């Protein structure tokens, strides 16, 4: 048995190819990226050592500040939206539709698999004013509201971004949380019902505490992907007007490939990484503390 499963040669054959690719494509570039932080330039024109300049620039650069604020704002709104909508759908699937929820589940989930670029272009057209008012402005027109140019200010564009990304992703969180909810033992809910708990109280005191673990991992997942938001905004309005709706990720991309500054681009990439890691650890630790208390 050990002769077969402890065969060193076989282990090497199975593991080495994946390990080599992983080292070359992930591990070495991550370290390399850190080194880039101390340089300015790009591989075509060459690099110049600038010490900690990129890191101090991080704190003085106005665009970085607005991009960070926008990213945090976006992440907060999107995560709250995704979790509330996702949880409401999950409750609807489990407690109202029950066995017949498959069809609705499929319908709410499908935008998740659609290409983000296509969805963004579609929403840009749905909210447009010219050449023809889009469905959204037409709908507002029914209530007597004059057509709004949704891409003329950061605040307006933010609304479109949030609506679009919630439409696109809520089905994902609904299925994720649904998977957690059906794990809640039927007997517990039944006995709570017999005790007279129903509706909101049943959810608040019984279902919510029991689905806390999956809720927590959904929040972590949601925040992590929100910090990395890129393609939906790039394709919708390219972070405009100006840099009003530019998230860190898009700014990093523009710095690197439009302004060809790999050094500062790497520093921004590091900022995104630190943001993701620290939020994940923070939620992890606070959840641990709560569990020991309970």
């Amino acid at each position, binding site marked *: *048995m050990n*002769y*077969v*499963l*402890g*065969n060193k040669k*076989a*282990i090497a054959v*199975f*593991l080495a190819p*994946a*390990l080599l*690719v*992983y080292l*070359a*494509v*992930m591990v070495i*570039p*991550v370290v*390399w990226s850190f080194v*880039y932080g101390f340089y300015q330039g790009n591989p075509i024109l060459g690099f110049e050592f600038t010490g900690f300049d990129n890191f101090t620039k991080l704190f003085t650069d106005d665009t970085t500040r607005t991009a960070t604020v926008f990213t945090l704002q976006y992440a907060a709104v999107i995560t709250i939206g995704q979790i509330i909508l996702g949880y409401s759908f999950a409750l609807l699937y489990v407690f109202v*539709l029950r066995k017949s929820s*498959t069809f609705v589940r*499929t319908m*709410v*989930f499908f935008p*998740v*698999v*659609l*290409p*983000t670029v*296509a*969805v963004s*272009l*579609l929403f840009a*057209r749905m909210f447009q004013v010219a*050449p*023809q008012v889009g*469905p959204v402005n037409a709908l507002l027109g029914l209530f007597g509201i004059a057509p709004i140019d949704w891409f003329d200010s950061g605040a307006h564009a933010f609304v479109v971004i949030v609506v679009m990304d919630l*439409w696109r992703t809520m089905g*994902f969180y609904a*299925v994720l949380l649904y*998977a957690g909810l059906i794990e809640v033992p039927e*007997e*517990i809910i039944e006995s*709570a019902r*017999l005790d*007279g708990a*129903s509706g909101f109280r049943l959810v608040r005191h019984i279902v919510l505490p029991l689905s806390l673990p999956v809720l927590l991992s959904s929040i972590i*997942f949601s925040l992590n992907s929100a*910090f*990395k938001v*890129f*393609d939906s905004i790039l394709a919708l309005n390219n972070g405009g007007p100006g840099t009003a709706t530019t998230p860190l*990720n898009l700014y990093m*991309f523009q710095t690197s*490939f439009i302004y060809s500054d790999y050094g500062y681009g*790497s520093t921004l*990439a590091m900022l*995104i990484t630190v943001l993701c890691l620290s939020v994940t650890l923070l939620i992890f630790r606070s959840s641990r503390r709560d569990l020991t208390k309970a």
Partner: protein
Amino acid sequence: MTAIDHSRDVSTPRPRARNPETRRPSRTGPRTRRTLVKVLIGLILLIELYPLFWILTSSFKSQDEFLTQPLWSLPSALSWDNYVQAWTTGNLGRNTLNSIIVTLPSMAIILILGCAAAFALEVMIWRGRNNMLLFIIGGIMAPIQIILLPLFTIYFKAGLSDSYWPMIITYVGHGLPLTVFLMATYFRAVPRELFEALALDGGGPFRAFFNVGLPLVRSGVFTVALLLFFSIWNDLLIALTFNVTDDYSTIQVGLLHFNDEYGSVAYGPLFAAISITVFGTLAVYLSINQQVMKGLTAGSVKG
């Protein structure tokens, strides 16, 4: 457990206190409740499906109809001109081919390397395998942005820039950690006795992998394959970063460029292009939707 039993004991001897509570939902009446649910579902379907209906009808409209007809009007004729234009002048045909050329090999390489590595880390017995597994899984945490710039330099220096390789290599490296992790959890569920039996029969490690391990995690492989397919097919960041010439543009990049170049003049063809990508992906999804939901959420529940 004791708390539950206790509450059950208490609730049975006092039916009067329980009655008004359990009756409360029925005050609205089962019929109004059912109507409410129906209205809610109708609203959900409208929100989900109207955008699709709108792309489809718009994709058949002529330029004239966009400018002169009201928004709600349906196209006057079922003309495929927009689609032909999107597919040829818009280069969507070429882009689709590129997406296939990039996605399928990437998926295949990730699955082969990932399954083998997961087998070595989960089933094979050796010292340090747990640390190695953690080391590889750690890659799930690294955001893709951080590896792009060094990789761009490497590909440029290696003279690979002008090919499909930068995309394929990057997708493979980035997709591996999650694949190894998920496949390891699937291999964990395979009973050890099967491998022992094979060893007693004189089978070697390679037979253990190909004849016992892989067939038993088949559904896991399929689930992971779907996860990989949608994440690579719909990716924009990597495809855009390594897109040095239009010859290698994937669908997502092509669609973005098409919008920049023609989006503000050729409304019909743009809608046709959106429609092709959306309904194409939708067709793949609807043919296997239960598996897709399972696959795409597996990555985050387990990760």
